[in-house]
């Protein structure tokens, strides 16, 4: 048996002055979430890939030395080379510039679309949950009906009507019913929080309703909202590429990843590399946002807080 050293038998003095001292530094919810996200290697890798893609979309068209709509009849359908890093398309346009220019459009659509639907959904769901009763009932029935309309059919119809050639009208088409999911989620979350004891405690202590909403309801919805935004960004990018693929999206000379893929798909058998880069970008972006969303969900879950 191992001998226990003598000094282990020392008396532990209780110092009454130390009783109020905090053992660990106090950290806020967001600091804690960030600390937990940092330990998640997959999420951080996704974050790095996403940052790279975004940075390249900003500077990519500049560093290639070619304009994205610049036509060069002397170099049509070139494979990737030191001159054209991703090759050229059937009009001799530099694909490196085009892929990053397309990235701007696709990422802007993804982020703006997700933000619009998050804001509209939060306001709608928040109103429904706050007023409750009949208002809630009617508002949620409307959402239920909108929600059961096949999403892409709505998008297609609206893009036919608005003749969506520009970013703005395309965003309208994409977000028209896209906020319904968020509205349902926010309402559910808010109802759940509203019935919790600490809200009741705050009410009995005489805290004003506006302060309850700002201090308690919104921060508690924010975590699920952030997660849902990071999941809906890839969905918007996907829907946009789908629309562009069937010819209802961004029109040339401007482009998006979907439009590039659509153009490349028709001559895929001869020039496979033209599909490879836009396809890779769509897949990487979607994958990164999905994995980042998974990481955020774990990091922002207050029940997992250490």
């Amino acid at each position, binding site marked *: 048996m191992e001998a226990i050293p003598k000094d282990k038998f020392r008396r532990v003095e209780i110092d009454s002055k130390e009783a109020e001292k905090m053992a660990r530094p106090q950290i806020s919810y967001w600091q804690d979430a960030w600390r937990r996200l940092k330990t998640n290697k997959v999420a951080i890798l996704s974050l790095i890939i996403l940052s790279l893609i975004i940075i390249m979309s900003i500077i990519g068209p500049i560093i290639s030395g070619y304009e994205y709509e610049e036509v060069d009849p002397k170099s049509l359908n070139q494979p990737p080379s030191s001159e054209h890093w991703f090759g050229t398309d059937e009009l001799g346009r530099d694909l490196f510039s085009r892929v990053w220019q397309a990235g701007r459009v696709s990422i802007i659509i993804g982020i703006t679309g997700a933000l619009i639907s998050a804001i509209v959904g939060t306001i709608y769901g928040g109103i429904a949950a706050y007023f409750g009763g009949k208002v809630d009932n009617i508002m949620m029935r409307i959402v239920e009906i909108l929600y059961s309309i096949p999403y892409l059919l709505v998008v297609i119809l609206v893009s*036919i*009507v608005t003749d969506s050639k520009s970013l703005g009208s395309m965003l309208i088409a994409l977000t028209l019913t896209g906020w319904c999911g968020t509205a349902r989620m926010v309402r559910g979350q808010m109802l759940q929080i509203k019935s919790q004891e600490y809200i009741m405690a705050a009410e009995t202590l005489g805290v004003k309703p506006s302060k309850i909403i700002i201090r308690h309801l919104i921060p508690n919805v924010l975590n699920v909202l952030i997660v849902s935004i990071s999941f809906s960004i890839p969905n918007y990018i996907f829907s946009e590429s789908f629309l562009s693929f069937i010819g209802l999206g961004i029109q040339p000379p401007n482009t998006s990843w979907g439009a590039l893929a659509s153009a490349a798909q028709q001559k895929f058998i001869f020039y496979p590399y033209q599909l490879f880069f836009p396809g890779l970008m769509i897949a990487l972006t979607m994958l990164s946002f999905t994995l980042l969303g998974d990481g955020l969900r774990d990091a922002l879950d207050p029940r997992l807080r250490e």
Partner: protein
Amino acid sequence: MGRYIVKRIIYMLLTLFIITTITFFLMHSIPGDPLAHMAKNLPEQVKANYYKKYGLDQPVIVQYGKFLKNVFTEGNLGESLRYPGRSVTETVLNNSKVSGRVGVQAISLGIVIGITLGIIAALFRNKWPDYLVMFIAILGVTVPSFIIASLLQYTFTVKFQLLPTTGWGDMKHTILPTIALAFSPIATYARYMRSNVLEVINQDYILTAQAKGVGTFSLITKHILRNAILPVITILGPQIAGIFTGSFVIERIFGIPGLGSYYITSINDRDYTMIIGTTVFYAAIFVVAQLVTDILYGIVDPRIRVSNDNE
């Protein structure tokens, strides 16, 4: 349960009616002449006759009333504006047979392979089969179907020349489109099934069964699978919707004369009656699929049934 089903059917009809109305008025609010493509150079009288034939000389609300009457009394969705004499209803039904075949094959393939992969992944949790399945699942979720379709087409028709590139007719024409369409259902089912099985494995009744000496095989088939497979029904509805939209792209790539490729053609042609008819048809299938999913789920999961009866 009876009340629940009736309530759901009423909702379904209401939804369908709203979709029909929205589609109709959206299509009629498009600026420009729907007959512009053929009435441009015609004499005034001929033009007027054309408008009369399609009822376009009347106010929109009258046209709407007529449309509803035709749809609900005889299931008649009108006549194509692009190709005079072609009935929308007939075209939709004929084309949907082709799409339906590929769709059913893809969904069946997706369910069978997806569920099998999901079970394998869960039983070999954190070993190589699990990682392999999750890798396939992530690919299926993040790689758009048109890229998968292009790759399949390239590999099996250009590189190895095993299957025809495009076209329609034999079984061999359906193989590649089915696989391309099934990719995303496989991924979804595999992910879903994996998490379900993992959840069930940790339940107390599995421990009880093990303690009572149930063998591994019957533990998996009788105790784990039966409980894990039920919630899979819930994602059937969204999956069917996904198959539709996937088919728009896949049918175009493989040159299949299905409803999806026809829909895209009528969109590009701005053939308004055709767009309305096809949209209503798609919406109807989608809404019915949702209803069936909800009812099935209500039957399968008693908790849903109870909570709805108490409302």
